[in-house]
C-alpha cells in the first residue's frame, strides 16, 4: 500500500492516491462541493429568499413599501379566485399531457417503430419540427390558423357547413382553454414521441417473441409486457410533463394573455401580470412562493407515486 503524506495545507498529494482516500479527505470534498453549492445559493436560495422577503411587503415595484406580514398570502388563499382558477388550468394541462398526449404519442411511436428505418426517420423528423421551433413562431402560427377572420381553420371548416364558420377559437369562452391547450400539446408532442420511440427501440426482441410464444395477442403484448417494461421511461416522461405544465407561460402570454377573463389564466402568467402589469410586486412574489410550494409538492408526490408503483412492479 502506497504511503501518502498529507501536505502542509491539509491537502493530500494527488499522485498515486487511491480514489477512496481522496474522497475521504475533507478539504477535497469541500473543494468539490463548494462551487456547486455557491451556484445553488446564488442562483436559487438567495433569489427565493428575496422573493419571500418582498412577498411580505406591499411593494409596487417602484418607490417605498411597507411590511404587511402575511396579508398577501391570506388574500391569495382566501380572496383570489384567479389564483385557484390558474392552478386548476395547470391541473387540466397536466391531465391532458399525461393522459391524452402520451397515449397518442405512444401509439404513434409504436407505429413508427414498425416502419422501415427510412420512413420512420422521415416521420420522426416531421413530428419533431414543432419541438425545435421557437415558441413565438408557434404561437403566431396558431394564432393565425385560428384567427376568425382570415384563419385557415375556419376556412377549412366552412367547406363542410352552409354558413361560414367564424369561431374566434382563442377569444371565445367555450373554446379558448381548449385552443391554448391544443397549441401547448402540439408543441410538446414531438418530445413525448421521441422519448417513447427511443424507449421502444431499446426493447429486447426476445421479450415480444416470448410473449408471442406464450400466446399473447398484440394488445396483450403491449399492455402486459411492453408497457410494464417501459415503466421507468413512462414515469420520467410524466415527471417532465408535470414540471413543464407547471412552467407553462410563454404560449399563454403570447396568445390570450390569460383571457377572456381568467379562463386561460395559468399561474406563471398570473404572477408576472400581478408583479409587472398591476404593479403589485409584493403580491406577485407571494404568488410565486406559493407556486414554488405547489410545484415542489406536486413533483415530490408524483415521484413518490412512481417509487411505490415501481417497487410493486
Amino acid at each position, binding site marked *: 500500500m502506497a504511503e501518502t503524506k498529507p501536505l502542509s495545507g491539509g491537502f493530500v498529494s494527488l499522485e498515486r492516491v487511491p480514489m477512496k482516500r481522496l474522497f475521504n479527505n475533507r478539504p477535497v470534498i469541500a473543494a468539490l462541493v463548494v462551487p456547486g453549492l455557491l451556484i445553488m445559493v446564488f442562483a436559487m436560495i438567495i433569489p427565493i429568499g428575496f422573493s419571500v422577503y418582498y412577498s411580505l411587503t406591499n411593494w409596487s415595484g417602484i418607490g417605498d413599501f411597507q411590511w404587511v406580514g402575511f396579508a398577501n398570502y391570506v388574500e391569495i388563499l382566501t380572496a383570489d379566485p384567479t389564483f385557484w382558477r390558474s392552478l386548476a388550468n395547470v391541473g387540466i394541462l397536466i391531465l391532458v399531457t399525461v393522459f391524452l398526449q402520451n397515449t397518442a404519442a405512444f401509439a404513434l411511436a409504436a407505429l413508427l417503430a414498425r416502419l422501415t428505418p427510412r420512413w420512420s426517420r422521415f416521420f420522426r423528423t416531421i413530428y419533431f419540427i414543432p419541438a425545435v421551433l421557437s415558441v413565438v413562431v408557434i404561437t403566431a402560427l396558431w394564432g393565425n390558423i385560428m384567427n376568425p377572420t382570415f384563419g385557415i381553420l375556419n376556412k377549412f371548416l366552412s367547406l363542410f357547413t352552409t354558413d361560414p364558420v367564424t369561431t374566434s377559437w382563442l377569444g371565445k369562452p367555450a373554446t379558448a382553454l381548449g385552443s391554448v391547450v391544443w397549441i401547448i400539446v402540439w408543441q410538446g408532442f414531438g418530445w413525448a414521441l421521441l422519448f417513447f420511440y427511443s424507449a421502444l427501440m431499446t426493447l429486447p426482441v426476445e421479450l415480444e417473441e416470448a410473449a408471442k410464444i406464450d400466446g399473447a395477442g398484440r394488445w396483450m403484448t403491449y399492455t402486459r409486457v411492453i408497457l410494464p417494461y417501459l415503466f421507468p421511461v413512462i414515469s420520467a416522461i410524466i415527471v417532465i410533463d408535470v414540471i413543464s405544465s407547471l412552467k407553462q407561460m410563454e404560449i399563454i402570454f403570447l396568445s390570450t394573455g390569460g383571457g*377572456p377573463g381568467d379562463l386561460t389564466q395559468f399561474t406563471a402568467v398570473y404572477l408576472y401580470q400581478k408583479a409587472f402589469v*398591476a404593479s403589485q410586486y409584493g403580491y406577485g412574489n407571494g404568488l410565486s412562493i406559493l407556486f414554488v410550494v405547489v410545484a415542489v409538492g406536486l413533483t415530490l408526490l408524483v415521484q413518490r407515486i412512481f417509487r411505490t408503483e415501481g417497487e410493486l412492479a
Partner: protein
Amino acid sequence: MKKIVVALCVAVLVTVGAGAQTKVSLKQGDNLPDRTSGMGLVFDTINSEFKAANPGVDIAVESYPDQPWQEKVKIYVAAKQLPDINKYWSFPGMFKPLIDAKLVQPLDKGAFDKLGYLPGALESNVYDGKLYGLPLTADCWVIYYNKKLFKEAGVTVPTTYEELLALVPKFKAKGIIPAVTDGKDAWPLVETFDNLAERINGNFGRVDAALKRTAKFTDPDFVQAATLLQKMATSGLFADDLMVSDYGASRNLFGQGKAAMYLMGTWEVGLATDANFSQDFRDNVDAFKFPVVKGGKGKVDDLVAWYGGNIFVNATGKNKDMGVKYLDFLAKRWPALAWEKQAGYPAQKVVARANDTTLAKTLLAIGSDAKATSGTPSLDRSDAQFKDSIQKAIGELVVSIITPEEFCKKVDAAAAKAAKK
C-alpha cells in the same frame, strides 16, 4: 526618437481626452416601433437634427409596442436601468409613482409656457407644482371610418348609438367587418365605456365621483353604459377576434380595408399618410364623433379627450442635463414636424394648411368643436391595480362571461379597494 514617441503619446492622449469630453450616449425608450412612418419617423427626424446640432452626442433608441413598453419601464426601474429619455404617459396612475420615487427630472415650466401648448396641456404634467414631463399629443376618442366601404354598404355616418348598431347587418351582408379595436389590451374598451357613460349621464365628473366614492359604479348610468358596451360586442359590431386582436392586428384590419370602422384615439391621424396602406385607403379614411345615445344627456360635442403621451428625463441618469436639452429641442420641433408629416395630433398649437389630409382636417374640427372634455380616462385615474381590474372585467363583459351588473360590481369593488389605500 524619444521626442517623437512623447509627442505621439501626447497627441493620442489629447484626442482620447477630447473624445471622452464630448461623447454622450443618450438612451431613449419609447412605444414607437414603426420608424418608417408616423410618430416614430418624427422622433427619428428630431433625433438626427439634435445629433447634428450637438456633435458628439449619440442617441440609442429602443422601441416596443405599448403594453410591453409599459412593463419594460417597470422592469427597468426595478433594475435601475431606466433610459435617459422616456416616452411615457402623464396619467397619475402611471406617472406619479415614478415622480414619487424621484426618477423624473423636474423641468422649468417657464421655458415651455410660450411654446404654444394647448390649454391644460402642460398642467397635465404638473405634480406638486412642478412640471415633470412634456405632453406630446392631444388625445380624443373618435371613430375612424372607411368612406369607400360605407358607400359599398350603402350607409351613412351614424349620429346615434342605435344607428351605429343598425349598420351591422348591412356591413355583414357585404362581408365587411363593421368595426375593430384593440380588444386584447382592453383599454380601448374602457375608453368606449367612458364615452357611453357620458353619453348617458352627460357628466364627465361621474367617473371621478365614483372613484372618490361619492358615487358608485353600480349606479344605473354606469350599468346602462356597460349594457350598451356589451351589446356592441354581442350585436356583431366588432370583429369576432376582438379579444385576441391587439393594437397592430386591429389597425391592420382597418388599414387593409377589411373593416369599416376603427375605434381609436386621434394619435392615429397618421392613418391617412401611412405608406404601409394603399393609396385607396388613405384617400378614403376619415373620422366621426362618437355618437350620442337616444334619450341620454350627453351631447355629441362632449369629447373624451386627454393629454396622454408625454416625454420625461430620468433624474437618476448621468446624462440628465443633456436629456433636458433634448426636451427643449423637441418642444420646439415637435408640433411643426408632427403636423407636417401628419403623424400625430400635437398637444401644441398647429397651423392648419391647405394640403392637410381630409382626416387631419376632420380631427382638428372635432377638437375645436368640443364643448366639454373628459380629462384622464377612468382606467388611468386610479392606481395600477384598479386599471388591471377594470381591464380584466371589461374583457369578461364583452365576451359575456359576466353581466353588466356583475361588471359594475367588480369595478366598484376595485374602486373601493383603491380608495382605501
